[in-house]
């Protein structure tokens, strides 16, 4: 199949999966937002974990199933679509949960229904379409677009499921087709303009899919101070059970089953695995290097995102994040072209190129996470925690430390942890830009997965996944105690009081205050 056809089929799948996912995300968002805080947290965790499960692990876990379906391309495609659906629903749900509420709230929408279309359609501003545009659709379109984009760019599972039966490729995947064309024809690297000839169509499709989200972000304004409550009706009991069922199903199918299969597959090989010290040493060196690259990329991406968001330069951030939104293959090829065109051959396979590529790929995720987590709390909250932390009382200092961790440290840890996780498991940019000795360990695992499942590979994959998880756990524990060891913990400078003006002045006054006359 030609690249344009595969691109078209991939786009069709992306839109179809996203449309099917849309009502599911609406239900999940309604259920989570109206649940108690504790249940909401648990539900959000259950929601997000499947999305964080690496695609190649999922594909590897189901590779035997897909082998059985090699002669049934329709079922193969359905299985693939179902796995994609389970993986992208969390993203759409998070968009609905965290996007600013639409102008037309749920109570306004109900009033509209009570008044009836006959009356409201008399006026342009209260007509049905105007209400749709200002209502839930305003947030659902970006959610659909983002989910479709993720499906459109998915290649790890597609690569492991890929079969041609009677001349038809299942599942169709433009990124696999472009990747093969790159390998087959040295696309772009002999003649950079070839990339554009092949790559313009997926690029245009990606932009189309992401445009509702970009439009929402571009036109987003800071929320007004007045808190307009958005009364949302709590879903019925049957719906709540359906929500629980869905969360359970996606967690089981996308995370639990793959993890359990890795453990079961690799169980018998663990003893011999640990005895192979040389391969263990090699694996740990590769893992450490992969982690180092992931960390550098995480730092760069998060510092840029934080800096620009703090300076309220959202639009600049959107422009910088755009290449990352186009997917790792498009981004990798763009960078390859840019290096060849402007920097000369050879530089595209360096650690610098690799770090730059991964940073750009992580930037949109960093921006989204910084926005969602609101990494830095308002100054007042932070200041209050600091006051407590500077107390002479040990209990109050401990309370202040806990508050600082909750307000800031935990959020930054979550941000760094998630970005590191994604950076560590990234495959395509590694393939295109990494020098031989810096190829990521996940990339090596993924290559070997195409040979089929075996115990040793399962054991190694499990270990590779545990590396970043373990490191994030260590960081969380260390980070919890970090405020007490850093230099600003016990400052000796006196408090700076304002001179009476609203701005924070630097005038000092005698800390022993004058008592007012009684």
């Amino acid at each position, binding site marked *: 199949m030609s690249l344009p056809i595969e691109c078209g089929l991939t786009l069709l799948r992306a839109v179809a999966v996203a449309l099917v996912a849309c009502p599911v995300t609406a239900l999940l968002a309604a259920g989570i937002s109206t649940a108690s805080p504790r249940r909401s947290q648990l539900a959000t965790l259950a929601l997000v974990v499947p999305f964080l499960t690496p695609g190649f692990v999922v594909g590897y876990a189901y590779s035997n199933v897909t082998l059985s379906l090699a002669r049934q391309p329709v079922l193969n495609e359905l299985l693939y679509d179902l796995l994609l659906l389970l993986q992208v629903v969390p993203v759409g749900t998070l968009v609905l949960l965290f996007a600013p509420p639409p102008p037309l709230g749920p109570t306004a929408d109900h009033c509209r229904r009570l008044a009836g279309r006959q009356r409201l359609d008399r006026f342009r501003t209260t007509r049905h379409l105007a209400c749709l545009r200002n209502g839930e659709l305003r947030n659902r379109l970006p959610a659909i677009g983002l989910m479709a984009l993720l499906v459109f760019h998915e290649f790890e599972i597609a690569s492991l499921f890929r079969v041609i039966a009677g001349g038809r490729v299942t599942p169709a995947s433009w990124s696999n087709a472009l990747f093969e064309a790159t390998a087959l024809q040295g696309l772009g690297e002999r003649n950079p303009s070839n990339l554009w000839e092949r790559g313009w169509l997926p690029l245009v499709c990606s932009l189309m899919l992401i445009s509702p989200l970009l439009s929402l972000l571009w036109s987003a304004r800071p929320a007004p101070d007045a808190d307009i409550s958005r009364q949302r009706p709590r879903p019925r009991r049957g719906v709540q059970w359906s929500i629980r069922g869905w969360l359970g199903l996606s967690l089981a199918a996308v995370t639990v089953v793959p993890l359990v299969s890795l453990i079961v597959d690799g169980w018998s090989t663990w003893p011999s695995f640990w005895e192979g010290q040389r391969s263990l040493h090699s694996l740990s060196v590769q893992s450490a290097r992969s982690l180092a690259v992931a960390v550098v990329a995480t730092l760069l991406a998060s510092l840029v995102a934080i800096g620009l968001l703090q300076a309220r330069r959202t639009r600049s951030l959107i422009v910088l994040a755009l290449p990352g939104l186009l997917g790792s293959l498009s981004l990798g090829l763009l960078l390859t072209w840019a290096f060849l065109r402007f920097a000369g051959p050879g530089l595209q396979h360096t650690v610098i190129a690799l770090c730059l590529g991964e940073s750009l790929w992580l930037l949109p995720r960093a921006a989204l996470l910084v926005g969602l987590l609101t990494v830095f709390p308002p100054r007042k909250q932070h200041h209050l925690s600091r006051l407590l932390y500077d107390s002479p009382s040990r209990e109050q200092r401990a309370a202040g430390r806990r508050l600082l961790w909750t307000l800031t440290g935990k959020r930054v840890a979550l941000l760094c942890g998630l970005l590191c996780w994604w950076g560590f498991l990234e495959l395509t940019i590694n393939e295109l830009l990494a020098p031989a000795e810096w190829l990521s360990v996940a990339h090596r695992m993924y290559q070997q997965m195409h040979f089929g499942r075996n115990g040793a590979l399962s054991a190694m994959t499990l270990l590779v996944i545990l590396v970043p998880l373990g490191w994030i756990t260590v960081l969380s524990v260390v980070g919890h105690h970090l405020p007490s060891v850093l230099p600003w913990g016990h400052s000796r400078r006196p408090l*700076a009081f304002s001179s009476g003006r609203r701005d924070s002045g630097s005038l000092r006054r005698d800390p022993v205050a004058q008592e007012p006359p009684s």
Partner: protein
Amino acid sequence: MPRRSSPPLRCPNPVRSNLALELAWAILLIGPGCSPSPTPSTPPSPVVTGKTLVVYCAHDALYADPILERFTQETGIAVQTRHDTEATKSLGLVNRLIREKAARTCDVFWNNQVLGTTDLLAHDLLVPYRGSGWKRIPDRFKDPRGRWCGFAARLRVWIVNTDRLAATATAIEQGFAAADLSRMAIARPLFGTTLTHYCLLWHVDDGRTLKAMHADTRRRGLIEVAGNATVKNLVARGTCDLGWTDSDDFFVGIDDGRPVAMQPIRLPGGSTICLPNSVAIIKGTRQMTAAQRLVDFLLSSEIELALARSPSRQIPLGPTDQGQLPEDVRHLVGWASEGIELSGLTESRAACLAWLRAEYDR
């Protein structure tokens, strides 16, 4: 009564202080990643000056990595390997070597076949070397100037699920001629040994029979998958009855206890398809001595024997102690000797590849 002064307090900028927090974490994060120290029980680090031999290897990492690790152990020369995906394998690496012409990073190219390596001749990318290893390999498996050399071969074979089909030439022929070919699988012929297979078929009559066969098999529902290993998996699991694969992939199925058997694929004329690995030194290498040592190492009888005794059961091409060969491999030696001549295929390969690209781009 004067009020007790409260402890002095400073209000830092939360932005700066939190960036410092991030940087502190970064130090913790990066630190261990920079210099991982080997465990006490691992072998001593290589002695050579810190430079590493970069090998592009199209052979399966499962078999190639132990060989290269043994080389490092014996010589102290560190090796960094770049493999490619199962799907694109040698072709991907060949193209990569061509496009890295201006700024080479590879020292030695270990291909899992000969075609592809011979492509590099046209780009003047190979360095002649006629070492001890080259000398022991028969002439038909090497470049006379020493720019490349073959070793440790595989055969293209029919793999058959014996629960569903007898592993006889007649049964295979009947299976291949069936109206519904959806129970047969091959790897995509754009890459790897299947590409070589197609090139050999093309060479017979400039592709006329091949084109007809290609169209016909697809019309009858032939399954194409990413690589030979997947073909083996499909047949071993019984999803397909028969397929084309390489002998090393077949033996993986045998070792897994699967009900599979094989027959050599024969071209019109009766020849089998014997595909040696090939090794070549890339022009521009700055580690000529180390590269030459690796080439001699790979072409040595010990390594050919090791590869023969490995799960891949590769067939030695140079003289080896037949008594040390596993029974499986001895059985294959006869078939290997009926292998078709692989030289003079450059033009056919180019034409076949051009046709395939157009075919799969429709």
